[in-house]
Structures are given as C-alpha cells and as structure tokens.
C-alpha cells in the first residue's frame, strides 16, 4: 500500500518539522581579491561589535624535522611588530580601544582574531593587513617570545599531570612526521629556531593567497569589502605553498605503551583510533558517535564507567578531525582502588556493543537534538562564527560547512553509526596509553621529557586573565 505509507511518512515529516524547527542558515558573502585573499563577510546587527578572523593555511603539519613548535612560535612573532605596528602594539591598541584578541595554532592552521566595537573597523583591518604585508622581526623579539613559548610549554605540559601523555599519543598514533609531533614542539627545537627561519616561514605561508579573512558583525557588506580591498588589496601574492603529504601508511596492529608520570596522582587511560580526514563521508557519523558514546552524563560511557561501575572519576570520548587523519579519543581518569586494566576491559566491551548492534532510536534522536543546540550556539557569537567561517574555508575550502555540517549530522542514521564504529573503532587501528603515577619522591626527578595537561599550543595566547 504505497499510498498509505506515503501519507504516514508525510505526517511524520510534518510533525518532525513542528517539533524541531530548522536552524536558520548562516548567510555570508564569499569574495576573492586579485591577490588571492578570500574574504567572507556576514552581517549581524544585534550588538555594535564585529569580529575579524584571519586563518592561515599553515600549522605544525608544515614544520620540518628539527623545527617542531615553529608554527606556534611564529604565531607569537605576529604580535611582535610589522612595518607600521610596533612590537606589542597590536594587543596594546586592541585592548585599549575596547576589544579583545588572540591567536591559536593547531596541526592544520593558524588563526588570529579580534573582536572590537564597530567604530574600530579600520583598526582591526589595519592591524591584520599590516602584519600580513610586512612582518618585522628582530633577534631580541624572537628571543623573548621563545622564552614565553617555552613557559607556555612548561605551564601546559611539563608542570602538569598527563602532559607527556597527550604529546605521546600523537607520536604513537601517526607514522607521518606531519602529525607525529606536538604543536608546542620540543624545547630543543624551540631553541634552534632562528630569525631566518621566521623570515622564510613568513614568505612561504603568510601570503594573502594562503589565508582567509572573515568579518562578522555590525557591518555593511559593501562598505566593508571596499575597506578590505583598501587595506589588503596591494599585498602581493606569493607562490602557492606546496601542500604537505599527510597520507598515513595503514595501521596494521594495535600500539600500546605504559608511561610513568611524576606529577600524576591517578592513572589515566587514553585510547585513540585513527579516523579518516574531516571531509570524509564518515565524519558526521563519527561526531555523532562520540556524542552519544562519551559526551556527557547521559552518554553510555558515563553511565557505565562513572555511575554504574565506578571505575572512572571522569570519562570522555571525542572526535578530533583534521585535514588528514584524525582521531577518535576515549579517556578515563581511573579512581583510587581501580585499575587501568579494569577500565580498558569495560570500555572495550562498550566498543564491542557499538559493533554488534545499532544505537537506539532514542539515542539517535538525542544526538540530533544535541547537535542542533550546538549549532544554534555557534550562531549567537560573532567571533565563533567568524572563526568557523575562516577556518573551514582555509582548511577545507568550504566555508559553508557551518551550514552543511548541521544538515549532515541530522541525516546520520543508527546504521551509519554502527558502520563507522565497525570501520574505525578496531583494535588494530588504535593506540592504548596507560599512564601511572610514578613511584618515588623528588630525588628521582630526571630531566624532561615530563608531564603536563592538554596540548596548550591550541590555547589562547596572552593568557593574563
């Protein structure tokens, strides 16, 4: 009875629409200047502010051996002066004229952003254009930022429990050097960086044709675009940088390691599976999977490992996508009296359940609702929107991902989730790191490499308050 089922389907569709009003799409203009700079503008007149984001297509993946940490160190240099902006004047002006700003580096890209009152539109454009055109680097400035970055490493990794664990995870899961080292880099490599390295990096990667500029807020698109042309239009194009090879040889067997951590007081279990590049068809389902598997108090892992079995003090699962191979990570802080082995066995059991049966309709719907709420959140802040637009354009050549990601997430089915779990959450495709508190006192202290918390290089820059 095709007709009847058609009506039922229509009815369901209709009630579905009533229950879940669509999230309004983000509208933007997308222009390329003659020098290759891609300019994205979205108007939002709610508050008298605007955000400006510049994302450059360069990250730690582009570093060569012996220069780990350089992309991030370079990010610091972008605040140390250009032809018309003195060292430190960038943040001096931004903060004194009512704004806020920062920069952040990850494996794939480097992002700079400001949020300012609307009457300071010229200021934001000028500051970003001047350093794209004419970075002016001295040995002294490199030296003091080298110290600040080394301090950032100490604060985030070397003086924190589990810092080394996160760094080691990247080294273990990847074979290709591009992703096989940390964003923050080693102390030795940070020490080796020279002013010539900075100049070369600037020439190759900090060109208009390797960047995306996004502006969101209380702006007039036409007028803003005219100003963008005025400030950025004459910055010369450079030869397009060679894309770095991100291919990973297939993983043939599980990799596991034990680490001792002199600063930790509880064991930490970290499991990570390789997942395909962000633009893969599997990404939406993997994001959904992480959400319902380990994304909060209603998730399977929380209910089983924190509440029911009381093995983990905290548990998380997340999908971290990259231009190349990403990671599906699961972490558990093990409770006193419990073991890493118990935690691993229980998590493996939960992973096996994902393979053997599809998630329930209730879980699927819950995930869809959660994604909708997240995307509504993204739309309320001008800065979040500007960063998304610039980042997705520079990394994936697709600023419309801010809209299409939501559509794809809402189309994910239980069968999709089961399929991607089977395809990627495989034992031979994962690493397992067991980190235990080290025995013994301070006299056992050796030289670093030592521990810390999260990879800090992706954190905001000037961290004062």
């Amino acid at each position, binding site marked *: 009875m095709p007709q009847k089922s058609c009506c039922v389907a229509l009815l369901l569709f209709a009630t579905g629409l009533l229950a879940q009003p669509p999230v309004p799409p983000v509208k933007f203009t997308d222009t390329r200047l003659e020098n290759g700079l891609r300019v994205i503008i979205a108007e939002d007149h709610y508050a008298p502010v605007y955000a400006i984001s510049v994302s450059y297509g360069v990250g730690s993946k582009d570093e060569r051996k012996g220069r780990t940490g350089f992309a991030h160190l370079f990010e610091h240099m972008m605040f140390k002066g250009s032809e018309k902006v003195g060292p430190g004047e960038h943040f*001096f002006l931004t903060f*004194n004229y009512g704004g806020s700003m920062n920069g952040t580096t990850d494996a794939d890209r480097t992002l700079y952003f400001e949020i300012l009152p609307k009457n300071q539109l010229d200021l934001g454009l000028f500051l970003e254009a001047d350093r794209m055109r004419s970075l002016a680097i001295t040995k002294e400035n490199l030296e003091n930022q080298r110290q600040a970055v080394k301090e950032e490493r*100490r604060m985030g990794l070397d*003086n924190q429990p589990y810092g080394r664990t996160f760094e080691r995870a990247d080294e273990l899961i990847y074979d290709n050097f591009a992703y096989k080292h940390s964003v923050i880099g080693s102390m030795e490599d940070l020490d080796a960086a020279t002013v010539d390295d900075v100049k070369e990096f600037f020439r190759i990667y900090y060109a208009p044709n390797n960047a995306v500029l996004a502006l969101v807020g209380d702006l007039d698109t036409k007028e803003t675009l005219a100003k963008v042309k005025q400030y950025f239009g004459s910055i010369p194009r450079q030869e397009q940088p060679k894309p770095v090879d991100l291919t990973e040889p297939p993983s043939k067997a599980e990799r596991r390691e034990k680490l001792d951590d002199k600063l930790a007081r509880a064991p930490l279990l970290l499991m990570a599976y390789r997942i395909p590049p962000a633009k893969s068809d599997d990404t939406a389902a993997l994001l959904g999977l992480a959400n319902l598997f380990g994304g909060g108090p209603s998730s399977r892992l929380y209910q089983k490992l924190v509440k029911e079995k009381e093995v983990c003090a905290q548990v998380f699962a997340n999908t971290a996508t990259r231009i190349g191979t990403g990671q599906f990570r699961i972490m558990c802080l093990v409770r006193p009296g419990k073991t890493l082995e118990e935690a691993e066995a229980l998590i493996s059991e939960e992973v096996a359940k994902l393979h053997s049966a599809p998630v329930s309709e209730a879980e699927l719907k819950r995930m869809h609702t959660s994604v909708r*709420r997240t995307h509504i959140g993204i739309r309320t802040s001008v800065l979040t929107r500007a960063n998304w637009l610039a980042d997705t354009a520079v990394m994936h050549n697709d600023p419309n991902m801010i809209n299409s990601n939501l559509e794809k997430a809402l189309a994910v089915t239980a069968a999709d989730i089961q399929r991607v779990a089977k395809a990627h959450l495989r034992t031979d495709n994962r690493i397992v790191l067991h980190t235990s508190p080290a025995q013994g006192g301070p006299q056992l202290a050796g030289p670093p490499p030592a521990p810390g918390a999260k990879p800090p290089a992706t954190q905001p820059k000037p961290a004062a308050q």
Partner: protein
Amino acid sequence: MTRHILTICVLSVASLSAQAPQGQQQPSDFKGVVRKNLAPISNEILRVKFPKPTETKLKNGMTLLVIEDHRSPTISVEIAMPFSGLNEPMESYGLSSATAEMLTLGTKTLNAREIAEKLADLGASMGASTGERYSYIRFSGLTENLDPLIALLQDVLLNPSFPQDELDKWKARMLANLKVARSQPQFLAAERFQAVLYPSDIRAMIAPTPESIAKITREAVVEFYNKNFRPDGGLVAVSGDTSAKQIAAKLDSILGEWKGAPPKQPDLPMREAIAEKKIYLIHRPNSVQTIFNIGNRAIDRRSPDYIPAMVMNRVLGQGPAARLFRNIREDKGYTYGIGSNFSASHFRNHFQLDTSVRTEVTGPALEEILKEFRDIRDRGVPAEELDLAKRALVASFALGTESPAMAIRNALTIREYGFPADYWDTYPEKVMKVTTEDVQRVAKKYVPMDNLQIIAVGDAAKIRETLAKFGPVEEWDAEGQKVK
C-alpha cells in the same frame, strides 16, 4: 531584532590623541610595547546602555527579571534563592554543594539516569549550585521544549528524593576528583591563599576534605535542603526567546505554592589587610615552574574605592595591555601569562596576582613584580596611560552587549549590593572622573608592599633560599600540611 544601543556619544578625553607624540611620556610607562601610533583609530567611545530587564513579581512573591532575545530558539532560566552556600558547618564542608548536585540525581518519579537522558532529549542542561549570597538552580535549552523543561525544573527543585546510593556515589566521585585536583599546582596555590586571607572560617576552604566528605550524611543533606532551598526574597532571571508574560505564567504554574524563607545570611568578618609580610612555600616535588599567588585583603564590592581600584588595576595588571604583562612577559619573557585582580564581593575583599614562571627565574620574576607594585604606589600614573586605561574600561562595555547574560548579571549586581538603578548608566562617567591622585591613593592602600602575602608552589629545594631573601618563609607540603 532589538538594538541595544540606546545612546552613542563621545566622551571627551581631552588629553587623548591617536597620534600622541611618543616623546611625551617617560619611556618606562609603556615597557614591553613600541608605539608607532600609525594605526587608524576612532577616538569616539561607543557608549552602550545595557538593556534593562522587565521586572515583575511571581505569585509566590519572587521577583522576575526578563530580557527578551529572539535571535535563537533558546531560553535560560536562573532561580536565585537567597541563601548562602557559606552557611554550612566547616566540619562537613561540601554539604551545600552535595545538596545542590543531588537535586538532579533523583526525584520521587525519576532516577538520576532518567533525568540525565531527559535533559539530553530536550536539548537542555540543568544544574544547581551554591554561591556567596544566593544559591541557584538554572537551566538552558531549546524553547520548543520549554513546557517539559519547566515540568522537569519543578520536579528536581520541589520533589528531590536524595537517594542514598546516589549520595554514596557522589562522595566517591568527589574523593577521586580531589585526588586529581591535588596534582595541579594552581589548586595548591589557591588552597593556601584562601586559608591565609580568610583564616578560621569557612572561606578558608576551597574544596572538601576526605574527612569532611565522610561527615556528609543523607539526613544532613535533607535537612540542609529543607532549611535553605526556599524562595522568599529570591528572584528568577530569564533571558531568551520568550516574553515576560509567557514565562511568568509558566513559572507561576509550578512555583505558585513554593514559599518560605531561608535562614539569615552568615555573619563573616571582613577584616583589614594582614599586617606582617609572609611567604608560604608549598613544596610540589618535580615542579619545573613556580606558581605565584600574591596579594592581601583590600576592598569589598561596596567600597567607595571600587571604581578607582578598577582603573588602577587596569593600569597595573588587567589584561595584556597592562604593566605586569608588558614587563614580565613581553619584556622579560619570564612567564606565559600574568595578571592581577580584585575579588570584591560581600564576603571576599582581596587583591590577587597570579602567574607561573620557570623555576630558574623565581627570584628575578618576583623582583620585577615587586618593582611594578612599588612603582604604581610611589609614582603617579602618567596622564596618557591613565586615559587609555579608563578608555579601555568604558569602551569594552560594547562587547558585553552581544549576549543578554551580561545585562542580567549587571541587574543582579544592582540588587545584590543595593546600588541605585542607574548604577551601570553612570559607571562610565565615574570611571572617566578617576584621577592620577585617586589611582595612587588606592594603589598605596591596596597593593601590598611591606605586608605582602606570597604563595609560591614549586620545588622547595630549588627556590627556598631565593624566597627567603624576600621575607620570612613558612613551608607546607602538597597534602595541605604545614612542614615546620
């Protein structure tokens, strides 16, 4: 779309100029930055007024504050009950937060898992927490699910069942998380700093102890709930995709019969600054940095010095344009981040500097910090630097208008401290009136020098002697125990 700029005007800042010649100020004023003064800036300060919430009364007498924001189909509701989380016995510290967290861990009809799943199904988050003067239950979620959310709010607020097994699990989780917290140097610094500033009462504690957790019983939780979770004198703050009328009706339908007054606010002494200089060294084995918390008691939120103190701190330590950051990070490269602030409320009144520096520069960094403290106390802030600081405070108001959350917070501050209704409207003028003399006066009064309280967390063997050069040192271990 409602526009929230009610007035735009230019505050005249006579001495301010975009192209101020560099030679005019002493070179040390802007250490860590080279000013070329070539950037195009607008000297107009965009002056914004925060939207004022609509104010009405609910049937049970609570005040309802609403800011409509129809940009997205979401809503946030915050019920502020006028009881203090500080009103709990020190020996069972954690009782108030245990009680708050237990609300979402079981009602007469729903268990903890069902509540968590229901919230996720509704695209919402909900939780209770206790504060200094008010304690809160809040939710935020999708407007399309407002009715079931309101029903769930009623259930967790008015029908909690406090299951024994959930309390046992909460206690076990808290113990495990405490253990992890103790591995973090910032926790150890904060623990000692609060204990030094607020000795012998509940403010000395920043987290429960294994002993205090053991003393939290279900009976005590139920008693705490019955005594404290009451509405009289409280308020409900709402922002989002709703109207005052709509949300009032929904809240009345669930809170109409909820009545009663909580106990009086605690009586906690607000003391003067500590007179004697002292250094507290917390030994954390294997540390490669020294974490500093430096300060002393200063002002509460109602102090007439509050606004001059904010301006002074903007010059000294707030944000990357301030002196501490420019000198100790940008000029010296001793740290990744440094800043200072005032914790000024009803029950806290301290000034605090935070930073972390590599172990080797513990001494030089401390010297530079004290140099900045001395300088702002002894030398008047140059006119241009002062003007920029004031401008920054006022101009940054624009950023706060993006979300109704700031407007709600501002409205709550007015009520909490009994400020006049136009407090925030006149705030910019008050900031602009602060003079060099005001700044120096509050710096001398509140930035400590002879009576510094210094907390340093690091490897004691490596920094003990260095610290001793700055004053008398008392040593503690990473378990929170005094060593000698």
